[in-house]
Each structure stands twice: as structure tokens, then as C-alpha cells.
């Protein structure tokens, strides 16, 4: 199975919009999926500036899929979704 990469945006907008809570993923993900899913941070995914009037920060990318207004739960759902599709 292909490895899943979770990339959390640590840019200014995402951080103040709740990105801080997403570092819980660091504990939850390895416990749940072991080394099948890798969590890392990105200085900025550059997504808030594209559609800035309707920015949906914080953003997380699960492989190439963007999770907008990300919460731990939303990110975990996306991981599950991609894993099911893979199977």
C-alpha cells in the first residue's frame, strides 16, 4: 500500500485559525496507523492567498487532497477515505 503523507500548513493564517490544534495529529496518527501515514509541517501551503476573500484556513493536505477548515476529525476522515479507496 502506498504511504499517505499528511502536510499541515504552519503559515500565519492557518496557525491563527486553529492550526495549533492540529499537532494532536502527531500523537493520534502513529498510534492509529503506525508508519503507514506520515505527518509533517509545511511553512506555508500557499492556499489562503489564492481565494483570500473566502479563505478556509486552516488547511491540511492529505497527499494531494486539500482539507479546508481542517480539524483533527476531518483529517482522520480523509485518511480513512483514501485508505478505503486504495483497497
Amino acid at each position, binding site marked *: 500500500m502506498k504511504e499517505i503523507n499528511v502536510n499541515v500548513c504552519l503559515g500565519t493564517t492557518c496557525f491563527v485559525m486553529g492550526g495549533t490544534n492540529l499537532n494532536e495529529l502527531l500523537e493520534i496518527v502513529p498510534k492509529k496507523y503506525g508508519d503507514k501515514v506520515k505527518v509533517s509541517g509545511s511553512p506555508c501551503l500557499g492556499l489562503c*492567498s489564492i481565494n483570500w476573500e473566502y479563505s478556509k484556513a486552516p488547511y491540511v493536505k492529505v497527499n494531494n487532497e486539500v482539507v479546508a477548515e481542517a480539524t483533527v476529525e476531518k483529517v482522520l476522515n480523509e485518511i480513512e477515505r483514501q485508505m478505503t479507496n486504495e483497497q
Partner: protein
Amino acid sequence: MFIDIDCTQEKKYNQNTYGDYFVSKRYPEAGRLVAVLSDGLGSGIKANILACMTSTMLLKFVEAESDIQKACEIILNSLPVCKIRKISYSTFSAIDCDDEGNAKIVEEGNPQFLWIRNNQILEPQYRIITSKTFSNRHMHIYKIKLEKGDRLIFCSDGVTQAALGSKDLRLGLKREGLIDIVLKELSTEPNISSRELSRRIVKSALIAEPDHKAKDDISALCVYYRDPRESLIFTGPPYHQAKDSIYAHTFFNFQGKKAVCGGTTANLISRELGIPVRNDLHQISGKLPSISHMEGIDLVTEGILTLTKACEYLETEEIGKDAAGELVKFLLDSDCITFMVGAKLNQAHYDPTLPVEIEIRKNIIKKMKKLLEDKYIKKVTVQYM
């Protein structure tokens, strides 16, 4: 040349304040620095007031007179004498020097300073001026030319008389003892900062005391002529994207220390120069995003929030253990700081519904520049892109 100056003090055992006093002031436009170290008669609060008065007044006089010799003569002729002990209320050493290495030094009553070049003690010529009002009071005046790498060490008699009367050092450390301490430190660490060297002199003087307690106020003032430590900070993407590559290369080719403040900025440099950015998310310490890592760059942080927090630390002098704290350490470890400030705005930062008010980058940098110049005496240049 940059003048690195610092003073370390230790108060006399059982006293609650310092009896020696140190003041210094830089005049960046004239490339000039004036510093005074004064030792007040006795110890504790009385000595502190005497020394503080002498040094601050002397500094003001030098400022107003622009000639240190005249300023010192005024003090020499007017400082009162203790009725009982018939000695001066305070002694002093004063230095007026510039970036070119021209220095005028005046001493009255303090131990003679050390002038060190290539680990050798130089013995400069001096003139003696006797007070018109007190015939037992003399001033030594030196006019010397310093070179890069030269050091000057001034101290109060608490250093040269440390361990006085002890079994091993009946006459105290004396000038020879001080020379030994300084030359030993310089041979193990030739580029030691003035701050660290002055600390070690005071520590060595304390160790020399049989019970490690200061029997007099101890002060060591060090001056070091060296190349300035330069650093460059890149924050914010340039207004014209077409110039990204030029700015990224200018930044990377800089010889001093380098920092990047901003997620988009870090990505820009990573893209233009092909250096990956690593962030392990582990160090988020509540209010600020963690530090990232890029090869060849000393510090990589988030932008606006970190800069705002760093300004706060510079103002309050309380440095937290987060990315802003690291940035402040980076800034304080430099003498000349250049900011490359990108003028492009990220509109998403100014959404009024954001839970935190975000300042405009240009304004934060303006505030930081003023703080670094006025409070920390750094040389700061800002370049907008």
C-alpha cells in the same frame, strides 16, 4: 571596526548594592563611544551614589564639552574629599574612542588599564595633570591608536586587590595577576567577547579570594576592536515576483548569518535555490509556529506572528523559549543587521474575522529597527523589495 564593550560587576560581600558604577553611550552617527567606570569611596549605597554621580556627570560633561580631558579636569577639581580619610569621594577611568581606533583615556585613582595587542601588553605614554585645588590628586591622560584585535581592560581596585592579605597572595592579585588571568583566557579563546572576558575576570578575582567572597566591589570593563558580526533577515515575498530569483540568490550569497521569517518566503527560497524545508511540527509551543530547517540558513521561522512576538521580547527583555526567542537571540548576537522586506501583502491576513489582529509587516520592521537601534545599539538597515 566595531567596538565591543561590556562590564561585569560583583558587589562587596554582605552589601546589597554595587559600590562601582559603569555607564557608556554610543553616538552612531559620529562612530563614537564614551564609557566611564567609577569606584565610590567605601561600599554599599553610599559608594553607589558617589560612583553613580561621578560617572553620569562625567559622561554628560564629555558629551557637552566634546573634550574628555577638559571634562575630567572639571571633575578632578571639584570632587570633594572625605573629611576623615582625606581621600577622594570616588575614583574613575574614562574612555572616549571612535570606530577608527582613536582613543583618549583618562584615569584618576583607578588601577592602570591594560592594552593588549597580539597577546602582548603594550605600555602607552601618558601625561600627568595635577588638580589645581587638590595637590594630591592626579590624572593620567593617554592618547592612543588602537588596531583591529586590540583589547583594553579597565578594572576597579577590587580586582587588583582581590585576596589581599591572604596566605598565598599577601599583596593581592596586583596588576601582574590580572595580566595572567587575561592572557590565559585569550590564549584559550582568542576571539572571546568582551561580555564573556569581563565575566571571567570577575570570576577569577572571586576564586582568588580565600573564602570566595568579595572583600571590595569588583568591576571589570573590557573593550574589544573587531570586525562587526553581520546578519541578514529575509521577510516577505518581493512585490515583483519576477525578481524572486535575484533576491533569493542575493540572500543566499550573503557572507554573515542568515534568517528567513515567513512561510511563503521560505518556500520561495526553497523553490529558487532547490533547498528543501523541513519542519517536524514537534516544537509548537502554544502561541507560535515552530522553527523550520533549511541547509545553509541559520534560522527559519513563520513571519508576522513571530516578528510581532520578537518585538515584544525586545521591549520587555523577557525572552521566551519559542521561535521568537530564537529570533531575538539571533538579532542580539549581531552588530549590523539588514532586513530585506518584501512588500507583497497576503490579503488573507487582513480578514477582520481573524481571531488575532495582524500588523502590516513594514510597520513591525520599523518598530523593530527603532528598538534595536535605540535600546540595543545595533546598526540596522532596511531594504524594501
